[in-house]
């Protein structure tokens, strides 16, 4: 039996970063708002409090703060001729659930897009000619410019409370920052975090080689801070339990530390947990949202929640899923290259090199998700696409984020995977390595997309989302180029030995090892209705 609830001005689907920001800004306008969150309620105390959260098995390995595939997952395949298989447990990427969403368990690396990236197609064609874009590459411009967005980036960074070093301030290049970034009107609100020995070793060598290292822009407070909502952050204590964990120290920016307690004071804002939105309901015109239907777990019933404004603020994959289930936008068809919803799913290309030093102690358990030195010398706007043979780029970073031993146990060649050799290897080499890695671009392609699975269903009986995705030569060429750039620095740093791991021409997407939760696309924005679900104001 479906319940009909009284009308609200606004219903928000998902109470993570996007839902919390939309919630507080609309609450200030006096609108009646209801946010629906499919997962549990979460607060720093008790959910992230010391010492319970410092539990690698529960949160790092068993994914305590992530979505449970039993409730929500998708299917995967490499191309349209394969039958997709369900992602039965998590691996390659880790969507959150619960209040705060993935905003509680991220690393806090907080980048602005480069001005060129927001109009990548136009930039590539104007600068290098139309031929640099392969036929099957379906990149497009975003329909908004960096200059238009700069005031919002600025406000976002001051709301979160970032620690970093400006590289380009009102057009002027500042030593020690990122000279390849778009110009900013103000410096970061806080100075950079204190970096450890490994990242500083990388910084010093990179600088000596004529590169431009700078501290990772960090949503981890380097000092005490109060934001525009009156929310307070305390300085990071480098606890070594950052990514995959809620912050025990009120230092990592999250909806909890930056917004929610301020938001909950508005009487015109309410939120409900364990409420899974099943569908956006549309008026007979097929264009106007009238509200949402959701499953209220506590009541054990479906609920229709009417609202004038429906904001999809879930994880990108779930927003796309809801659009496909609700008939928002024409579903994308790769055969005809028509339709929009599910089009241009893209990911991120990662790889890295581990450096072993038999005589150095790195104390790897001391760190945060953003204690890194970075270079952007090979980022998208620094690369000659025509000469290099690929579109895109990568930042390269040396980070020290954690030394949790179940997952973070780098061992050099020659050490076996088990037995006496492994045991001795862990004693000899734990804490004696650092890594330099690439977080690179992955372009959009005609046959990489999201659709509904014909076979597998979720507990509500809805078809699972189906991902069709594989690596492409353009992005393999990019990561192989980054490998040569990284190994140049590595060799100059003279480690005892090193080990590299990068995708190559034989690589296919592997859903098992963790790579990145930067799953993007599916509901692209832009100026052309034929290629975009959303207009430049994020309206469907």
């Amino acid at each position, binding site marked *: 039996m479906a319940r009909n609830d009284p009308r609200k001005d606004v219903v928000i689907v998902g109470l993570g970063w996007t839902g919390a920001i939309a919630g507080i800004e609309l609450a200030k306008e006096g609108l009646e708002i209801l946010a629906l969150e499919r997962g549990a309620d979460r607060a720093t105390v008790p959910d992230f409090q010391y010492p319970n959260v*410092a539990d690698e098995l529960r949160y790092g390995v068993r994914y305590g703060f992530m979505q449970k595939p039993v409730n929500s997952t998708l299917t995967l395949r490499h191309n349209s001729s394969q039958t997709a298989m369900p992602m039965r*447990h998590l691996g390659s990427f880790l969507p959150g659930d619960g209040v705060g969403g993935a905003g509680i368990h991220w690393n806090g690396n907080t980048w602005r897009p480069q001005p060129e990236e927001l109009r990548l197609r136009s930039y590539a064609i104007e600068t290098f000619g139309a031929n640099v874009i392969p036929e099957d590459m379906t990149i497009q411009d975003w329909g908004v410019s960096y200059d238009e967005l700069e005031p919002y980036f600025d406000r976002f960074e001051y709301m979160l409370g970032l620690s970093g070093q400006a590289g380009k301030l009102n057009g002027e290049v500042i030593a020690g920052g990122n000279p390849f970034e778009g110009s900013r009107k103000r410096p970061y609100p806080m100075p950079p975090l204190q970096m450890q020995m490994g990242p500083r070793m990388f910084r010093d060598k990179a600088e000596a080689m004529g590169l431009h290292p700078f501290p990772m822009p960090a949503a981890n407070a380097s000092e005490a801070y109060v934001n525009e909502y009156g929310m307070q952050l305390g300085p990071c204590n480098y606890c070594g339990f950052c990514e995959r964990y809620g912050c025990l120290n009120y230092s990592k920016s999250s909806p909890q530390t930056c917004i929610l307690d301020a938001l909950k004071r508005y009487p015109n804002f309410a939120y409900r947990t364990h409420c899974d939105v099943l569908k956006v309901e549309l008026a007979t015109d097929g264009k106007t949202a009238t509200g949402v239907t959701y499953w209220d777990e506590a009541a054990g019933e479906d609920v229709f929640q009417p609202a004038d404004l429906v904001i999809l603020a879930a994880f990108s994959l779930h927003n796309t899923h809801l659009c496909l289930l609700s008939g928002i936008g024409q579903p994308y068809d790769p055969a005809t290259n028509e339709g929009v919803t599910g089009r241009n799913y893209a990911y991120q290309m990662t790889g890295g090199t581990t450096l072993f030093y038999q005589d150095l*102690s790195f104390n790897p358990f001391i760190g945060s998700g953003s204690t890194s030195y970075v270079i952007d010398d090979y980022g998208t706007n620094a690369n000659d696409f025509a000469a290099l043979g690929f579109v895109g780029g990568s930042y390269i970073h040396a980070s020290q984020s954690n030394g949790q031993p179940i997952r973070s146990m780098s061992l050099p060649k020659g050490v076996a995977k*088990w*037995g*006496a050799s492994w*045991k001795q290897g862990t*004693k000899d080499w734990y*804490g004696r390595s650092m890594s330099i890695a690439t977080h690179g671009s992955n372009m959009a392609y005609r046959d990489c997309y999201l659709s509904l699975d014909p076979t597998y269903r979720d507990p509500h009986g809805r078809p699972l989302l189906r991902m069709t995705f594989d690596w492409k030569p353009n992005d393999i060429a990019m990561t192989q180029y980054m490998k040569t750039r990284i190994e140049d620095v590595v060799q100059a740093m003279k480690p005892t030995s090193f080990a590299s791991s990068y995708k190559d021409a034989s690589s296919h997407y592997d859903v098992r090892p963790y790579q990145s939760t930067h799953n993007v696309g599916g509901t692209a924005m832009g100026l052309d209705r034929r290629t975009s679900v959303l207009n430049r104001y994020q309206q469907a």
Partner: protein
Amino acid sequence: MPIDFPKSTRRAFLTSAVAGTAIAASMGHGWAQSTLVPLAEYVPTFLSPTEWAFLMAAVARLIPSGERSPGAIEARVPVFIDLQLAGEFGQASDWYMSAPHVPDSDPLLGFQASLTPALIYRQGIAAFDTWCEVAHGAPFAKLDADTQDLALTALEGGKVKLSPDLRDFFDLLLQNTKEGFFADPMYGGNAGMVGWLHIGFPGARASYREWNDPATDNVRYPMGPVSISGERA
């Protein structure tokens, strides 16, 4: 998550106080260890006696014990795995287990078995023991250490023919063994924090502001580990 509650009978205490002497020397504070039921008397929650015998033998090869260097047995890894298999992990409580299952699909598309981890252990141990009897004349637990290593190497390398539903058996066993060596002691393994002491990981200390200073470069952090329950070593 299930917790390895100490069974504080007088008999268990006295027995373990004697049995624990050898390893207590390398562990500093042994109080938690000495109140745990000794491994020889531990009654598994999930595993049968045959399965327990296999697991005791297998983890002893995966992380062997040294003269002054505790291995998986001293860390009570078999207890950890038994409790994990009895709990949410073993029952795949969080996993999507709906049919249809295609267990021999492309490994890059991930785990596709129709069996929970607990049942993969159950059927995997039985199949592997049968293979050991045919290839080496006895179930795994009865083989000598060198032959056990050969058998595990064959299992790891896919030389032991298993049904597709069991293809992740070795990987699960090795992964869970390492988890039991390095996870917080509240889960039954890493007893006395021997895994953390072995490598120099300070456990749940999680506060290092004064140690994140260039003045401490290349100085090994001096404090021993603490567990979530406050145990020190």
